[in-house]
């Protein structure tokens, strides 16, 4: 078991290196010149060259990459072109906000999605299945930024119950939670739908297997059979939970923009419009690392649940 975990950890390194190369290459693939973006329009050629030299843009690409990687692994993600602040600080604050939002929306989506999925599977073909599946389809189909706008219109504008924008203004926990409520709901919709559907189909797959009949044939009570089904459907579900949590971190650009929630998505959005390449690189790199680690965690969790996986 621990050898398997070790092997997976080692295998994560090339994945991360690959991600870093793509992130690095972005500077050169992206349309537009970052130097042009920061320099005044009337800057002289010499001035441009001087800035290029200062940022190391005049060196060959592999050299630039290795130097950049060397700085990245020590936690130096460079300085924001727009604000001149260290990127690592911006990313850290944004990541903290995004993590909290991702955690709360994931929790909401996981609990509701799993409950809906199981309900639908165990009532397959009946009214409850249709209702639960309908909610799931709405969840995956409705654009979450639009749902966010609707939520703002109802709960902030019409009812005036919850704040529409930003994070906490006074730093209190209650205030923070009140600001978080609407983005949490908006962000939970898609994973809720996805999870409900995956759980439903995973549970149906298990229910169709002969051992479920065998469990009933030996007189097990419903709740015990239910436990068997859940445990068998868990590995597949956990994979999706991990992926969805990853998407929550990276995929909240639009929702964070709608609610002006100061997270990584908001920062990414800002960086894109300002052509702030170092910030862009930093955010993407940190998110990619999170994704890889999350996948690793999911794989390891699965081996603990299903003993057959570690052998393959």
């Amino acid at each position, binding site marked *: 078991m621990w050898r398997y975990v070790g092997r997976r950890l080692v295998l994560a390194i090339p994945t991360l290196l690959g991600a870093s190369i793509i992130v690095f290459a972005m500077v050169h693939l992206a349309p537009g010149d970052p130097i042009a973006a920061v320099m005044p329009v009337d800057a002289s050629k010499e001035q441009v060259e001087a800035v290029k030299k200062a940022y190391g843009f005049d060196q060959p690409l592999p050299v630039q990459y290795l130097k950049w990687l060397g700085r990245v692994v020590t936690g130096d993600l460079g300085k924001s072109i727009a604000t001149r602040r260290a990127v690592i600080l911006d990313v850290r604050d944004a990541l903290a906000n995004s993590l909290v939002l991702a955690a709360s929306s994931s929790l909401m989506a996981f609990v509701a999605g799993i409950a809906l999925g199981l309900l639908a599977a165990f009532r397959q073909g009946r009214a409850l299945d249709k209702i639960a599946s309908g909610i799931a389809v709405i969840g995956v189909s409705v654009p979450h930024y639009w749902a966010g706008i609707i939520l703002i219109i109802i709960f902030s504008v019409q009812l005036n119950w919850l704040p529409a924008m930003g994070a906490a203004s006074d730093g209190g926990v209650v205030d923070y939670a009140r600001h978080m409520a609407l983005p949490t709901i908006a962000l939970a919709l898609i994973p809720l739908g996805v999870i409900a559907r995956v759980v439903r189909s995973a549970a149906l797959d298990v229910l169709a297997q002969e*051992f479920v*009949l065998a469990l*009933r*044939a*030996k*007189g097990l*009570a419903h709740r015990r059979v239910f436990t068997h089904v859940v445990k*068998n459907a868990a590995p597949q579900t956990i994979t999706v939970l991990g992926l969805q949590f990853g998407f929550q971190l990276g995929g909240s650009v639009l929702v964070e923009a709608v609610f002006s929630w100061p997270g990584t998505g908001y920062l990414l959005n800002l960086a894109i419009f300002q052509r702030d390449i170092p910030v862009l690189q930093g955010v993407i790199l940190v998110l990619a690392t999170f994704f890889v680690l999350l996948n690793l965690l999911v794989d390891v969790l699965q081996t603990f649940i299903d003993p057959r996986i570690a052998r393959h």
Partner: protein
Amino acid sequence: MSLLSVRDLSVEFATRDGAVRAVNAVSFELRPGQVLALLGESGSGKSVTLRSILGLHPPVRTRVGGEVLLKGRDVNRLDEQARQALRGGVVSMVFQEPMTALDPVYTIGRQIEETLVQHRGLDRAAARRRARELLDLVQVPSPERCLASYPHEISGGMRQRAMIAIALACEPELLLADEPTTALDVTVQAQILWLLRDLQRRLGLAVIFVTHDLGVAAEIADDAAVMYGGRIVEQAPVRELFRAPAHPYTEGLMLATVRRGQKGRALVPIPGAPPNLVALPPGCAFAPRCPHVKPPCLETLPPLHVVAPGHGSRCHLVPARFASSPALASSATGRGGLS
């Protein structure tokens, strides 16, 4: 009193193509300790009959008619809780393929224990001790290791032994064995068969043994019932059935089977295919494939003719072919079982 009495059982599944009549007016009785072989090819209704005895059919899109009286109580009229107590407690089932019939993510030990916890309310330590005893009973060579193993970690034969251990955990009176040796290697088949026969004798179990293998039926059963198109077409003590089959389908099965001491005899396949259960013919379901078919066979359902005491056949030709048999004088009870 009979342990099990199946009366006029019929099972229908609603499908997109129409109602599938999987089991049709099946009746039979089973005494405590009696071994009945249920013979027939795939789709003849054997397994569905077994599931009806446990009341295991899904409530939706299934219609069950007739009675399944287990120790005098109709399984279909019991509430779910009473049925759960019967399943595993009074009747248990051994499945054809132990790999798919065992939960892959639970150890063998847990799967035996949970049955004991459910029916006997044992605590974990007591359940573990009893699970060990059960593995000894089914002759698993290293029970401790088997208890801690997951199904994929042990051999097919061991898995089937574990399955039998689960079935016997709460000392049932009736064991339903659904082709328990079919999925195993030939050498292991014999071992499992001997084990089942040995356990049956030692524990005085009544057994319904579903198989399509006449040799297996001859080894283990007292009586045999041959199913075709969802009906029992012939029923007799096993020896009688082999000595004097009274239904063309049974004869066909025997001609198509390899038998000891008959080297050089060509096997004769039964032409055609089993009937479509959605559109059963009005007459005898076997008529389209029957070498002796006569006009009435295609029109009316053959009644049950008594060929000899305890030996019945649903074939129109019985009176003509067995005219000399004295038992025929009292034949033709339209429905109902023998024995």
